[in-house]
C-alpha cells in the first residue's frame, strides 16, 4: 500500500479529525460524534439537506456541507453505508422545523438505512422526504433507471437543491427540484486502475497496466466492457454516446458539463477529456453553459474519470449559478 496513513482502522476518524481541524469555521461534529458532520451555522426555518455515504470518495459526501449546499452528512466506513442511527442524529441536528430532505446515492445499504432513519425521524416528529440519485447509465439499461448507481452527478443535485433551500423554499419544492435534477443528469465513467481499501490492504480488483474498464462503478462495480486502454478521444466518444442517447440530449439543449477525476488522474488529463467533450457537444448542437473539471466524487487513488451532463432549464440554471461555499467546493455567483 502506497498510502500516507497511520493504522488502517483509524483511517476514517483521523481523516475526519483533519477535516474538523482544517475547517473549524465551516463544519463541526454533532455532540462530539465525528461521523455526524453538520454546518456550524443553522438557519431557522430552512429545509435541512442531509446526505450520507461511505468514506473514500472525497469530496463526496461530507465535502459539500456548507453555505448554499448541504446542512449535514453521516459518514460510513470506507465504501460502507453509515448507520441509520447516525443519520437520525444528523437529521435531528439540522432540522429547524421546516423538515429535512435526504439526498443520497442509490446503493442498497444506504437506501435501507436512510429509509430506517426516515421512519425513526418521523416518529420523532420530523418531516423527512427523500431523493435517491442514480445516473450512471452503465449500471442499468434505460427503463430500469431505478436500478442505476449514483455517482458524480449527485453534485448537481446538491448544488441546485442546496441553492433552492437557501432561498427558503419549502420541503416539497426542494424535493421537486432535486428530483428534476436527478431526472436530467447522466454519467458514465472509465477506470484505469483499482484502489485499495486501507483495512483490506490489497486492490479491490485487478486491472492490468494497459487495460481500462468502461462503465465501472466507484467501488469497482462491473462496467460494460473491459479492454485495452484507448486514446482519450476514443474513450470520450465511447462514454459520451450512451449518455447522449439515454436522456436523450438533443440539438438545442443546454447542458452543464462535469468532468470528474476518480483520484489518481491528473487534471491535465481531465482537460484533455474536456476538449473532446466540448468538440462532440458542439457538433451535436448542444450548448454548454458551465463546465466543472476536477475531483467531485473519487474512489481513493483509483485512476480514471467520468463525464456527467445535466440538461438545464431556466430554473435549474438559475440555481446552479448561485454561490456556494463549502470546504471542498466554492463558487461565486455565475453569470446566467
Amino acid at each position, binding site marked *: 500500500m502506497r498510502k500516507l496513513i497511520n493504522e488502517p482502522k483509524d483511517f476514517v476518524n483521523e481523516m475526519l479529525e483533519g477535516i474538523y481541524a482544517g475547517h473549524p469555521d465551516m463544519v463541526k461534529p454533532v455532540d462530539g460524534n465525528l461521523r455526524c458532520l453538520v454546518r456550524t451555522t443553522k438557519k431557522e426555518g430552512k429545509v435541512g439537506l442531509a446526505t450520507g455515504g461511505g468514506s473514500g470518495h472525497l469530496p463526496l459526501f461530507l465535502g459539500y456541507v456548507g453555505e448554499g449546499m448541504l446542512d449535514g452528512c453521516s459518514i460510513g466506513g470506507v465504501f*460502507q*453505508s*453509515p*448507520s*441509520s442511527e447516525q443519520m437520525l442524529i444528523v437529521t435531528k441536528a439540522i432540522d429547524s422545523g421546516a423538515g429535512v430532505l435526504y439526498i443520497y446515492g442509490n446503493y442498497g*445499504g444506504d437506501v435501507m*438505512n436512510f429509509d430506517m432513519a426516515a421512519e425513526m425521524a418521523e416518529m420523532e416528529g420530523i418531516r423527512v422526504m427523500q431523493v435517491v440519485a442514480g445516473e450512471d447509465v452503465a449500471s442499468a439499461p434505460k427503463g430500469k433507471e431505478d436500478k442505476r448507481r449514483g455517482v458524480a452527478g449527485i453534485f448537481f443535485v446538491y448544488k441546485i437543491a442546496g441553492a433552492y433551500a437557501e432561498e427558503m423554499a419549502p420541503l416539497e419544492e426542494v424535493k421537486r427540484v432535486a428530483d428534476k435534477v436527478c431526472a436530467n443528469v447522466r454519467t458514465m465513467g472509465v477506470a484505469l486502475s483499482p484502489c485499495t481499501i486501507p483495512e483490506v490492504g490489497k486492490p479491490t480488483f485487478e486491472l492490468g497496466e494497459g487495460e481500462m474498464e468502461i462503465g465501472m462503478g466507484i467501488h469497482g462495480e462491473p462496467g460494460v466492457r473491459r479492454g485495452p486502454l484507448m486514446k482519450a478521444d476514443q474513450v470520450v466518444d465511447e462514454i459520451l454516446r450512451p449518455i447522449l442517447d439515454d436522456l436523450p440530449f438533443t440539438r438545442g439543449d443546454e447542458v452543464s458539463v462535469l468532468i470528474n477525476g476518480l483520484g489518481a488522474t491528473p487534471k491535465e488529463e481531465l482537460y484533455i477529456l474536456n476538449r473532446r467533450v466540448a468538440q462532440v457537444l458542439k457538433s451535436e448542437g448542444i450548448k454548454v453553459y458551465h463546465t466543472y473539471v476536477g475531483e467531485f466524487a473519487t474512489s481513493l487513488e483509483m485512476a480514471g474519470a467520468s463525464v456527467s451532463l445535466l440538461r438545464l432549464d431556466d430554473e435549474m440554471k438559475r440555481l446552479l449559478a448561485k454561490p456556494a461555499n463549502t470546504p471542498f467546493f466554492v463558487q461565486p455567483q455565475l453569470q446566467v
Partner: protein
Amino acid sequence: MSAKNTLTGNDIKRIFERIADIMEETRDWLGELDGAMGDGDLGLTMSTGFRKAAEALRDLDEKDVGKLLAKAGMVIGQSAPSTMGTLMATGFMKGGKAVQGKEEVQLADLAALVHAFVEGIMARGKAKPGEKTIIDSLHPAAQALDQAISEGRSLKEGLAAAYEAAEKGVEATKAMISQHGRPAYYQEKTLGKQDPGATVGMLVLKGFVDYMS
C-alpha cells in the same frame, strides 16, 4: 436439557453467543461467497455484528425475549451498517416486536418471530422470494415452522426442520439470478452461485439448532 419446549431470555443470550461463534468460524467462507459478486465484507460484518450483539445482550438485565431480540438488532445495525447488517437489524427488531412481552417463547412464537423477521426484511429491502436474497432461506424456514406446528412437533424438531428448509433454500438460490445489491449488476453471471445473504440466514438458524442439541 431434553424435551425443552420453550426458550427464555437466557437461552436467547446463549444462542447469540453461538451464532457469533458460527459467524466467526465461517468468516472467510462468507467473505469469499460475498467476494465473488459483491464487496467481500460479509464475513467481517456478520462476525463483528453478532459478536457485538452477543456482548450487548450478556450485560443486559432484561427478561423480555422480544426486547432482547430488538436490542440485538439495533446493535448489529450500528456495528455493521452494510446491507446484511441493516436487514438483520430490521429483522430482529420486527421479529422481537412479534414476541414482545414474553419471557418464554414456544415454537408458535418462533414461527411468528421468523415470519415477522422475513416480512420486515421484504419491506425494508423491497424484495420478494426468488430474487436470490436472504429471503430465499428464511421464507422457507418460516413455512417449515408452520408445518411443524401443524404436525405437533417439538421445539427442537421444529427448529431442525426450519434449518433443513433454509439449507434447501440456500441450495435453490444457485438457480436464481440476483435482483438486489451489487450482485444484481452481474445478472446471468450469478447463476450457479449460492447467495451469501441466504447463507447467513441459514447460519442464524444453525445457531438455534446447535444450541438445542
